């Protein structure tokens, strides 16, 4: 029997000061060690996802109930045993930034994400920015190494144009080059 139990935990609640403190207090009490963690605030809602490792006797139910007791009733909590992935979500490849800009309409995110699925592209991060009447979505994605980048790029532009969106996909290096200090050669793997 393994000595360690690993869990993936998600918490959603109206944003307030002290949310992360309260969640991590529970993890400490249950002798947990947090590995990966990501927090964001979207439209006033605090969203947290993390993995933690606990002594074998700590169950997912125990974690859930401890968090529920500590947090307010409005909090949504999910605790799942952390499964080792049998294979990565998509074939290995390079990271790109996909961007669309245009009118805010229902279905845009679905259309973008559906396109990505068709081309085996995995979304690693997603952000939205409002500029007047326009919405800019930027997604940091991984394209499979075998993908024909130019074909994917053209297809993305064409698909988004139908929705009156300007669209682009470009390699992450352009963003790193313009915002990082360090030899450009290193970005090119030299």
């Amino acid at each position, binding site marked *: 029997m393994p000595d360690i139990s690993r869990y993936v935990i998600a918490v959603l609640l109206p944003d307030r000061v002290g949310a992360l403190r309260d969640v991590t207090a529970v993890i400490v009490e249950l002798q947990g060690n947090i590995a990966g963690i990501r927090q964001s605030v979207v439209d006033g809602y605090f969203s947290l996802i993390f993995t933690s490792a606990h002594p074998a006797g700590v169950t997912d139910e125990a974690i859930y109930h401890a968090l529920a007791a500590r947090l307010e009733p409005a909090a949504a909590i999910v605790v799942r045993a952390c499964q080792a992935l049998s294979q990565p979500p998509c074939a290995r490849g390079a990271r790109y930034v996909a961007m669309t800009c245009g009118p805010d309409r229902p279905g845009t995110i679905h259309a973008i994400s559906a396109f990505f699925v068709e081309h085996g592209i995995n979304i690693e991060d997603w*952000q939205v920015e409002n500029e007047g009447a326009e919405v*800019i979505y930027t997604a940091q994605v991984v394209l499979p190494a075998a993908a024909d980048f130019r074909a994917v790029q053209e297809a993305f532009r064409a698909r988004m144009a139908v929705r009156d969106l300007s669209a682009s996909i470009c390699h992450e290096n352009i963003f790193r080059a313009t915002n990082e200090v360090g030899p450009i050669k290193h970005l090119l793997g030299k």
Partner: protein
Amino acid sequence: MLARQDVLSTLRMVREENLDVRTVTLGLNLNCCASRDPEALVSAVRARIVSLAGDLVRQCDEVAARYGLPIVNKRVAVSPASILLEGHTTATAVRLAQAMDQAAAEVQVDLIGGFSAFVQKGMTPGEGTLIDALPEALTNTKRVCASINVGSTRAGVNVDAVRRVSARLLEAAQASRAQRGFACAKLVVFANMPEDNPFMAGAVLGPGEAERVVNVGVSGPGVVKRAIDRLLRSDPQATLDELAEEIKHTAFRVTRTGELIGREVADRLGVPFGVVDLSLAPTPRVGDSVGEIYQSLGVEKLGAPGTTAAVMLLNDAVKKGGAFASSAVGGLSGAFIPVMEDHALSQAVTEGTLTLEKLEAMTAVCSVGLDMILLPGDISAESISGLILDEAVIGIANRKTTGVRVIPVPGAKAGEFVDFGGLFGSGTVMRPACMEGAAAFVRRGGHIPAPIHSLTN
């Protein structure tokens, strides 16, 4: 993971602020093509260019697509053609230019530089041949650009060469009369010409360069202007040093872009990467103007007292930002003031606020010199020589590059409007305040000795 603001700011630079790579220039050494047989010479030159530059455009297009960044021009710069012309005639020189032109067309580049000679100390027969062939070579080719280095801080100025080039320049204007003297737009006369300049018309694979090399010229006047405008919106009282800091930061990002593009193209071609030339190179398009930068800084009327100071501030800040961004900065690297290619500068000339004399003062602190300036068609060769000499000594005395690219428009008078179209732009014919009066000085010929500070050993 990339930070949100980093992504957005870079996207803004590309989408809204006209960030692009102005040129990727492949330098090619042609010295191995030397031959006493004219036919063998021109065939070898054409074959070598086509063979080595054939994949340039495709690779540039791939890299541009990969990074979402336009590479506006793909060009070729060869080793000085004068070296190949030793023992040859002007007829062969013209054929050589035509071979370069045909090869450039075949590899689909829009301009090819290197019909050039370095004559700052003296002139070989081949160099003289090239100079004498300029009128016909530039008139009968579409893509060939020429450059002649007549001075250097180390050598002084070769006045005899200046006189010879000036005479040929006027002949080139006449020969291309039907195109309003356009042949002269493809000729620049330099002092301290850099060996690695990727921008036309002065691009050449100079002495000391590798067999092949990729040099990159970035752009970014629009990016710099918008950065200044953004700062001034948030802080209308921003001081000049604060504005200089903002320009520096922007130049950093623009330079990094250029190096990324250049290195990747070089890798794909299997060629060494040379330099990023971080010059702010305008186009006639509104929003892509160096003149607009000065206006954003507060020089409402270009040419007013203070304009030269603004040029210096911009040029210096660009260099500082670029130098931090990359250790491979070279070429000209600064702020161009090409009158016809910058709508704001061109407008200021038309309105009479920006004079030739003021432009000359600005060249003491800017990147290049008197660039893309239309002159009256009746200007004398001696006056053109005088203009070149004035610019050359600014260069050699200040240890900087200066150049003269002027177009005497046959039959045109000061105030007349000329439009060359495309990146060459349009403008108003301008004249020196004093058109003639130093002919005797120029006709003395000989050499202007190198300045005392050239003795650095």
